[in-house]
Structures are given as C-alpha cells and as structure tokens.
C-alpha cells in the first residue's frame, strides 16, 4: 500500500525516468510537459507538489497532489490492523467454540461439510472490523439530502450488531457526503415542482422496457436535450447509472478486443469490462507513460499466442476519480488515442455538471471537442439530483446500443418524474429556463471547492486530488480513526463519509467530502472549524509540508472566468 502511494507520487514526475529510449522529436508533448512542469514547480503555490501543465495541451494549470504517507503513520497503521486482526481471530475462535453467539450469516448445520458459502477473508474483515465501526455508515436520513439534512437517531446496545431507533431526529446536520454538486437535490423550487407535476400526469412507475411499452415522450425529449447539452449527435438514457457502465461495455467489446483500464476505475467499469469477455490490461492511475506503453505493446505484439492484431482497443477512463479526487489527463489521453487509433470510453459520473465553466464535465473543463471522445458516459445521480445514466456519441453508436445493450432491452425505463427532474435541472444549467441560477451554481461550486480545499490544506491535512475537483479525500490512515472521525463529526452535527479497506488500499483510509454549490460560506466555515477541532483531537493533521496562507489565488477569485454574460 505504501507502494501504491509511491506509484502515485511518481505519477507527476514519472517522465523523468520513463522517457528513456524515446526520441524526443517523436514525442513532442512528453518533452513539452517536462519543461513546463519544471517551470510550474518553481512558482508553485504548494511547495513540493507535482504540478504539470502541458502548454500545448492544457489550457489551465493542472495541479494535482498525492502527498506520500509519512513512514511512522504507515508503520502505526499496519500495527493497528495487526492488533485488530489478532482480536478478530480471537473472536472467531470464540464463535467457533460456541462461547459467543455468532450474529452474522453462517452455514446451516446440515451443510457444515459443504464448501463455505459465506465465510472468506473479506468476510473476516466485515465481521471483525467493519461491524465495530458500522455506526458511521448507512445512517437513515429523514429529509432531503441537500446542504443540510435530518438524521434518524439510533443507538446500539450490542456493539453495532443491531440498532434501535430512539424516535428522535438529529436536525440540521451539515451534509458533506452527498454527491449533490450543484445542489439540485431539493424538495422545492422549479425542478422539484416540475417533477411533482409530472408525477400527477404520468405517475411514477413505467412497468416496461424502452424497447417495449416503456418509451415515453419524456425519454425522447431528455435524450435530445442530453445530446444538445453534451454537444454530440445523439444520446441514450438509462434508468440506472451503474448498469449504464456494466451493461454497455459488453455491448461494445467482446472476445478478441482489448480494454485498457485505469487501475482506479469504478467497479461498474471493472464489472462491465469483465463481463465483456475481452482481455483487460490495467495502467497506472492517470499515468500516460504507462498507458502509452500498453498501447504500443498491444499494437506491436497483438493478441497473445496467435499474434493477430486486436479487433479493437478501448481505453476506459473516468472524469473525476471518486476516491482520489483526481481529474483524468484527458488532453493527453486523447492525443494517445488518436496516435494509436484506439477508442475512448469516458465515464463522467462525477464530473458532469461539476466541472467546466458550463458544467459540461471534463471536456468542457479542458476546452476539448466532444467529437474526440467516442463514448461519453455519465450519470444523472450526482449533479442533476435525479437517477440513471446516459451514453452520448455518434448516432451510429447510439443506434447500435439501442439494439444491443442489455440495459435497453431488459431494464425498466426511467421513471417520468426523474426524467422531468433531469430535464429541468439540465435546462437550468444550460440557462434555457431564462435564469442564471445554473450558471451561478456552477460558479459557486468552483468557488466553494477552491475555498474548502485551500483551507483544509492550510490546516495541515493531507488532501488528495486535483485542486478543482469537488471530491475532497482527506487521509485518516489508522483504522480506529475512521470510526472516531465519523462519530466525532456527527457529534458536531456534520455528516461525513468515511471510507476504508475494500474501497481504498488497506492503509489509505480516508474521509471523503463532497462540496456542493448548496453550501454557503457559513456552512463551510462551521464544517471547517469542526474538522479542524476533530483533526486536532484525533491527530490527523499529517501533512509534512504545510502551505502557508497564500494570496496567490484569493478565495473570492472565481476559478472560471465569466466568458459571457
């Protein structure tokens, strides 16, 4: 796991080692990046951080940091896991010998001799670590999860094996966990009203698939709107974001195809790639040298054993990586894709709406042409306050998917009020509703992101990811601190998401904040002071190079310039 962070820290300056054997003349942008990176490092706001800005490809500075884990912290974290594992074995021993009651699913008495159905190592982790700090997850919310939310109070008398509800409600908890980037998760306002009207007119259920009797005029309208929003020829919407990835990749790739996947891609992409039956090769996170090497090898060697050329090569990347808060180096990926004639599948689950001066995702952020990406995928769950996903691209592609995709043929189509919510919020973002609310929210989100990230960094926390990404992972490392952080923050009326082992490498446990346009400066300040207080209490201000409060990028300065009125 320390290896993992070492890889990450090597990402930015990997070109120092990996350009050997390559002619600079043939590889202009790598060389270019090398020079600019040095310049950037000299006048960098954050000392010792990797900042690379490819003048030819990037229109804005690309500042991304993954501070390495302090050695002592890594050692103590492993020690903590060691102690917890020992106690886990002790408890398993007690359960085995019936000294203690086993609460978790286990084999039936008559199937004792069978191959175990439930018990494996991940289960050991669930049983003996996750259960102990389970109170920080799955909290029932009893209001709209906007900038503030109400939680149902619950207590556990048997160390989190069961929960009892006290009947009280924890009011006005500041929500730093929902993917509500543009604040469209609301129960009032034009979007919610439009959705309510739609419910009165169409009802909620559809009861069929798109190919049969589940195709409503609202879906057609939404698809046209999405295509216009993205700037592509055509688009298609699905009722579930996860299934959009996992069911459409198998339609696009099959045996004899090669999928090049980022190592930190979301499970839905991984699942889709595996279901497709194609060969999968994984490149290091956001590392273009690694991707280029894989592409070259794929073209030179072809398929294993037969050495036939690959039928097609599909590069799968995400816009914003949800656990690292990093933004894909899209201009470089597109340059590589064009050079090696591969296809590009871009998952904009977190970035659509949240990035770019017009909220059109990572393409808008880098100022690129949507035609350069073959398959544009995204979700409506996050910025639009709805549910489901879309795929955008050439008309041929969408027509093909309509006929081939399992999501189109077998999945129930999107609920009409959800479709209406997405239409309303998307029009708001595009400014087609005649207001500037959407634009203001995009602006507000960018401002909040910069403010929140800068303040956290100044406090001395280790913050991962790109400076413009609204996903803000804050490192906690030690297993006990995961639980303690969630509990202490809730005591201070702030709801946070804490993430541990299966979702992250085992020692890189973290808290993940999602900044929203709905957060006011007051809320952010309250949250920040609470985070600072808890950070002092738990000693999680690990950063070894503290950024001094700087005026290089004033808080009030917008991240995006107003390009038009």
């Amino acid at each position, binding site marked *: 796991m320390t290896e993992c962070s070492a890889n990450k820290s090597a990402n930015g300056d990997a070109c120092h080692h990996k350009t050997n054997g390559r002619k600079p003349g043939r590889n202009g942008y790598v060389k270019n990046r090398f020079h600019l990176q040095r310049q950037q490092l000299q006048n960098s706001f954050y000392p010792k951080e990797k900042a690379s800005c490819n003048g030819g490809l990037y229109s804005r500075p690309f500042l991304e940091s993954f501070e390495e884990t302090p050695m002592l912290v890594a050692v*103590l974290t492993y*020690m*903590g*896991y060691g*102690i*917890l594992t020992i*106690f886990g074995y*002790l408890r398993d021993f007690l359960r085995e010998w019936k000294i203690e009651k086993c609460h978790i699913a286990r084999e039936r008495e008559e199937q004792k001799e069978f191959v175990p159905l439930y018990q494996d190592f991940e289960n050991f982790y669930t049983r003996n*670590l996750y259960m*102990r*700090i389970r109170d920080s997850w799955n909290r029932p919310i009893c209001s709209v999860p906007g900038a503030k939310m109400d939680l149902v109070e619950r207590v556990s008398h048997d*160390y989190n094996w069961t929960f009892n509800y006290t009947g009280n409600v924890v009011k006005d908890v500041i929500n730093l966990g929902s993917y509500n980037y543009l604040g469209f998760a609301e129960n009032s306002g034009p979007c919610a009203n439009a959705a309510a009207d739609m419910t009165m007119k169409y009802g909620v259920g559809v009861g069929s698939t798109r190919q049969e009797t589940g195709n409503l005029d609202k879906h057609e309208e939404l698809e046209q709107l999405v295509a216009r929003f993205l700037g592509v020829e055509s688009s298609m919407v699905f009722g579930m974001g996860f299934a959009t990835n996992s069911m459409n990749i198998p339609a696009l790739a099959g045996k004899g195809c090669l999928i090049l996947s980022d190592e930190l891609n979301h499970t839905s992409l991984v699942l889709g790639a595996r279901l497709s039956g194609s060969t999968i090769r994984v490149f290091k996170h956001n590392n273009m040298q690694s991707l280029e090497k894989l592409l070259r090898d794929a073209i030179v060697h072809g398929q294993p054993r037969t050495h036939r050329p690959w039928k097609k090569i599909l590069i799968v990347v995400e816009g914003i990586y949800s656990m690292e808060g990093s933004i894909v180096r899209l201009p470089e990926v597109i340059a590589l894709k064009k050079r090696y004639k591969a296809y590009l599948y871009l998952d904009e689950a977190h970035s659509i709406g949240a990035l770019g001066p017009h909220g059109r995702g990572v393409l808008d952020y880098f100022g690129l042409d949507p035609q350069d990406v073959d398959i544009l995928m995204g979700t409506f769950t996050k910025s639009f306050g709805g549910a489901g996903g879309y795929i955008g691209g050439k008309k041929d592609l969408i027509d093909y998917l309509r006929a081939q995709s399992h999501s189109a043929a077998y999945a129930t189509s999107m609920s009409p009020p959800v479709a209406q919510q997405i239409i309303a919020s998307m029009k708001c973002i595009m400014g087609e509703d005649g207001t500037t609310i959407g634009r203001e929210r995009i602006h507000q989100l960018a401002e909040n992101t910069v403010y929140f990230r800068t303040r956290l960094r100044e406090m001395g926390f280790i913050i991962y990811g790109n400076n413009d990404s609204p996903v803000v992972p804050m490192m906690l490392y*030690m*297993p*006990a*601190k995961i*639980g*303690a952080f969630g509990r202490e923050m809730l005591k201070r009326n702030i709801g946070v998401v804490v993430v541990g082992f299966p979702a992250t490498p085992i020692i890189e446990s973290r808290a993940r904040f999602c900044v929203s346009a709905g957060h006011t400066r007051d809320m952010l300040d309250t949250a920040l002071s609470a985070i600072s207080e808890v950070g002092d*209490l*738990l*000693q999680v201000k690990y950063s070894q190079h503290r950024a001094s409060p700087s005026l290089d990028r004033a808080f009030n300065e917008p991240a995006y310039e107003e390009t038009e009125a």
Partner: protein
Amino acid sequence: MYSNLVSVTESSGMDVKNLKEYLCWLYYQYLLITGIYVLEPWEQSIFNTVFFTMVAMVIYTSYVFVPIHVRLALEFFSGLCGGQEESTVALMN
C-alpha cells in the same frame, strides 16, 4: 489570606484537572493509535493488561539487569584498554 488560600487550592485544582485532562487525552491517543478504540471494553482490558504487563516487565528487567551489564561492559572495555596500554609499555621497553 483566605482568598489567597482559595486561589492556591483553585490553581492546584486546575493543575490536577489539567493533568487529568492531559492523561485522558494521552489515553485517547493510545486507543486510536493501537486501534483498540473500536474494541469492546473486555477486549480493551485484555489488550491493556497484556501490553502494560509487557511494558512493566521490560522496565523491571532493564532496572535489574542493565546496571550489571553496564558495569561488566565497562570492566571489559577498561580491561581491554588497560591491557593495550600495558602491552605498548612493554613494547616500548
């Protein structure tokens, strides 16, 4: 005089309170770093018993044996140095 006394007792009270708070904080950090924060009380007491017994034994053994070892080491090294000096003296003669 009386107020003085009060202030003295108050300040000592404050000191005791601060010390107590500091010890609580230290114990909390110990809980977090070892990871036993998440364990049930009886598991915590097992861990604490084992851990503090080990620490106590280490301290006790070092108290008992380290002075002896240091003395022996000193004797050995001084003997070594002394022997060398003698031999050089002998050579010189």
